[in-house]
């Protein structure tokens, strides 16, 4: 299977760099998978879980929004925050969700809608994290 180059960078570090087979990215307007030879493409990300497949192994990384760019050199993801599934501090993540829920009360109108949407994304991630933790 053809591979392509994939870089995952967050402001604090280069989280991943290397040749991969496939990357599934949580896009703002729907998830999409990137394979080698994808057409040039720029997409905003929503908070979600990104799956990297390389050589038969899968790696899951949680991104909290960002931007993905595909060009002839490969895929570059500029993530706001990138944490691999194993490293995630579940308690801190739950705290963050709780804090977001509290803040909802202060918001209104379209800001509220966006906050709820973001909260939902976070909850989906949490659900996923908790369900994989049980196996």
């Amino acid at each position, binding site marked *: 299977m053809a591979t392509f180059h994939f870089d995952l960078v*967050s402001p604090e570090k280069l989280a991943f760099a290397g040749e991969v087979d496939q990357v599934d990215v949580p896009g703002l307007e729907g998830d999409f998978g990137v394979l080698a030879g994808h057409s040039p*493409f*720029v997409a905003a990300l929503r908070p979600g879980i990104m799956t990297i497949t390389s050589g038969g192994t899968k790696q899951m990384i949680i991104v909290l929004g960002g931007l993905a760019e595909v060009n002839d050199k490969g895929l570059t993801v*500029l993530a706001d925050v990138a944490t691999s599934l194993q490293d995630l501090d579940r308690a801190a993540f739950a705290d963050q969700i709780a804090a977001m829920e509290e803040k909802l009360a202060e918001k209104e109108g379209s800001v509220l809608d966006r906050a709820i949407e973001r909260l939902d994304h976070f909850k989906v991630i949490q659900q996923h994290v908790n369900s994989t933790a049980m196996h």
Partner: protein
Amino acid sequence: MASLKDMRVRIASTKATQKITKAMQMVAASKLRRAQMAAEAARPYAERMDAVIASIAGAAAGSGTGPALLGGTGKDQVHLLLVCTGERGLSGAFNSSIVRLARERALALMNQGKEVKFFCVGRKGYEQLRRTFDKQIVEHLELRAVKQLGFVNAEDIAKKVLARFDNGEFDVCTLFFSRFKTVIAQIPTAQQIIPLVVQAKPAVADGPAPVYEYEPEEDEILKGLLPRNLAVQIFRALLENNASFYGAQMSSMDNATRNAGDMIRKQTLIYNRTRQAMITKELIEIISGAEAI
């Protein structure tokens, strides 16, 4: 003339000072290594961000009006100078050189009849600018309590700047910080961040640039990306500043240690001379006393 005891005390105190500066130099050296690593780790993100913005902005520029963060407000009457300095002194000319650059820029702008406002990050810069531009400092922020500079700190500053920009409080924002070149060379730098200066891309030799698909539309993406880029630029500046600070502190403490060494040598020389002179004097007294008998 100071007595021998006074001289001994003074030498001891110079030695104690030397020990302190030596220790500070070593602490700065180890912190410098960490700060440098952090600055290097942040580089790929900032570089790619630049590249992505350049390519999207290039596409958006053709389609008409861009967002204000990119295109500007159409005026350049009010300038905001975002001055990032250190929290501590004892670092040679590090803080002063950033402040000097900002001050020169401010005076030049005011001579042209522009209005200048300051946003100070870091205690030292605030203290120095307060003397001349007290009324023009609209905000100042200290990062003293922050142990490890995180992206959150930069985001915080960016949010404050953006809130002021959205209120129409200024038209142009320039960031002042010290670029880390080597341990002994830090270059105070001014960088315009609002409106964003996009580097013109070199002419592509191999055919036209690839046509991107955007999801959502490019101006949507750009709208989300530009505030983020602002935070990234500030983050980079803070990290460079941090590394520069420790570099400056290290070399200035190295100097201080060497100067203390010189001083100790000089003082010891005077001390020994005085001591010998006193011994000789006492001998003469004893001999002449013995001869008199």
